[in-house]
């Protein structure tokens, strides 16, 4: 819009200048009149036309040709009378005038065009330079903005990273602390049960010695009291043995290795040889897998579960069957018996250490077997549960991860026993 206005203004200017130049040419010719008389009436106008062509281009120069012609005719040929082109000489002069004027116009116009062209090129160049400069400035601004944003974001990120790092550290610290306190607790349970054994051994041994050597010198009451002392000490020894075995699962467990469960099961059954024979039990198994586990502890799990199946038998001779099913991530073992079964409401309680559902006179034991199984299975990253109804037998299930999720080696240190 602006550019168009500038053009219009310069158009008007160009024509006004052309008119002005013709006026000046007229004045010059009037000034020269005393010298030239009637000769060369157009001469100053040629200069004016050239100037108009140089300054204003084609339009203004043609205007100045026309005005110059009229002015010359009026002032210097007709001398104030409207006798335009009265004689043939006038025609000849007019012809000469227009010829020369046309040449001047053409030349002047060419010069004018070249000048304009150069000017417009210059302007364009300047515009281009301006544009570039603006673009550069914009670019610099964008760059600055970007740099600023990067700085801000970097600061934010490093702040976030620091926070994350700190969080990670805190978490690692907590987990290390937990591990340590857990290990300490296991060590404590182990040491406590181990150190309790020594004085208890004294109590058990000397009450027994007393019973053996002095029974004949005591009355019935004395013998009864000593029998309770001996029995109590023996039971406590058994309990401490169990506690020691329980705390040993975590504190003294060995690293995991490939364990053929058929062999582990076989060893468990041979350990149960006496009770299997006594109860005429039928113990069978499907093909069992090889898993990543602590071999000794797997034997213990099979032995406790199969042993329970035999111990808690119903009216019929006990039958225990072991099988295994592969799930997505773990092996699920099942130990099924035809024993007395368990009420579902006790399904959780039986896995707690020293919890018993029967009196020792009916079914001997300390309530350690299933607690031990659970601890072992959990150390392997698995779970243990059961399905049972009273009088309809029980099925114990336990899962062991296929890939041996947790490595047991971290717990595999030895201490004094």
């Amino acid at each position, binding site marked *: 819009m602006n550019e168009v206005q500038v053009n219009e203004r310069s158009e008007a200017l160009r024509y006004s200048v052309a008119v002005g130049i013709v006026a000046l040419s007229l004045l010059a010719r009037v000034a020269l009149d005393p010298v030239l008389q009637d000769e060369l009436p157009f001469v100053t106008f040629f200069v004016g036309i050239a100037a108009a062509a140089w300054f204003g281009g084609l339009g203004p120069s043609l205007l100045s040709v026309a005005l110059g012609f009229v002015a010359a005719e009026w002032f210097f040929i007709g001398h104030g009378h409207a006798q335009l082109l009265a004689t043939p000489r006038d025609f000849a002069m007019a012809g000469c005038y227009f010829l020369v004027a046309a040449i001047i116009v053409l030349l002047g116009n060419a010069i004018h065009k070249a000048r304009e062209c150069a000017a417009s090129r210059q302007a364009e160049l300047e515009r281009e330079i301006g544009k570039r400069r603006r673009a550069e400035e914009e670019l610099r601004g964008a760059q600055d903005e970007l740099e600023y944003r990067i700085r801000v974001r970097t600061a934010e990120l490093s702040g976030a990273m620091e926070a994350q790092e700190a969080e990670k550290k805190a978490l690692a610290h907590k987990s290390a602390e937990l591990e340590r306190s857990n290990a300490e607790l296991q060590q404590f349970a182990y040491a406590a049960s181990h150190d309790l*054994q*020594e004085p208890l*051994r*004294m109590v*058990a*041994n*000397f009450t*027994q*010695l007393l019973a*053996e050597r002095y029974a004949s010198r005591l009355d019935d009451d004395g013998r009864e009291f000593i029998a309770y002392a001996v029995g109590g000490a*023996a039971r406590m*020894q058994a309990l401490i043995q169990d506690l020691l075995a329980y705390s040993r699962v975590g504190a003294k467990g060995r690293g995991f290795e490939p364990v053929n469960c058929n062999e582990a099961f076989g060893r468990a059954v041979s350990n149960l040889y006496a009770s299997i024979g006594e109860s005429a039990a039928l113990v069978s198994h499907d093909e069992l897998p090889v898993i990543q586990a602590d071999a000794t502890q797997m034997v213990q799990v099979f032995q406790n579960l199969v042993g329970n199946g035999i111990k808690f038998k119903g009216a019929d001779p006990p039958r225990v069957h072991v099988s295994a099913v592969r799930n997505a991530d773990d092996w699920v073992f099942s130990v099924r018996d035809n024993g007395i079964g368990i009420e579902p409401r006790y399904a959780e309680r039986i896995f707690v250490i020293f919890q018993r559902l029967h009196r020792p006179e009916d079914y001997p034991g300390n309530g350690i077997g299933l607690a031990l199984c659970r601890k072992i299975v959990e150390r392997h990253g698995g779970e243990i549960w059961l399905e049972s109804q009273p009088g309809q037998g029980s099925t114990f299930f336990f899962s062991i991860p296929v890939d041996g999720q947790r490595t047991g080696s971290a717990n595999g240190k*030895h*201490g*004094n*026993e």
Partner: protein
Amino acid sequence: MGVTAELLLVEDNDGDARLTREALKAGRLWTHLNVVRDGAEAMAYLRREGKFIAAARPHLILLDLNLPRKDGREVLQEIKSDDDLKRIPVVVVTSSTAEEDIHLAYGAHANCYIPKPENLNEFVAVVEAIEHFWLSIVRLPSS
């Protein structure tokens, strides 16, 4: 052996010392049981120092590992690195069943390693077995 067998028992638990004495009493051999209660006393006894100036050289040493003051493991090392004393057989009787203790004891040339039995009958049986094997079957060097 003809004469009385001298035994040195290194044991800090009086109850176990007494039980050992009782078990030996039931045996058929004439044994004389000397009891010291820690490692330092054991070495003093063997080297006839201080109040042990008139101590008899033992034919057999029964050594507990967990002792106050000088530990049983150190006592074993000292006995077995002494040119004279190393000829006396050392029976380690201890409540430790740790694999490294067993390893360490035999490494230090203990003559055998016996875990302390849990109940009275086993304890008596073990003491009788020691007595029978080391003082009756085995031929020991004359001092």
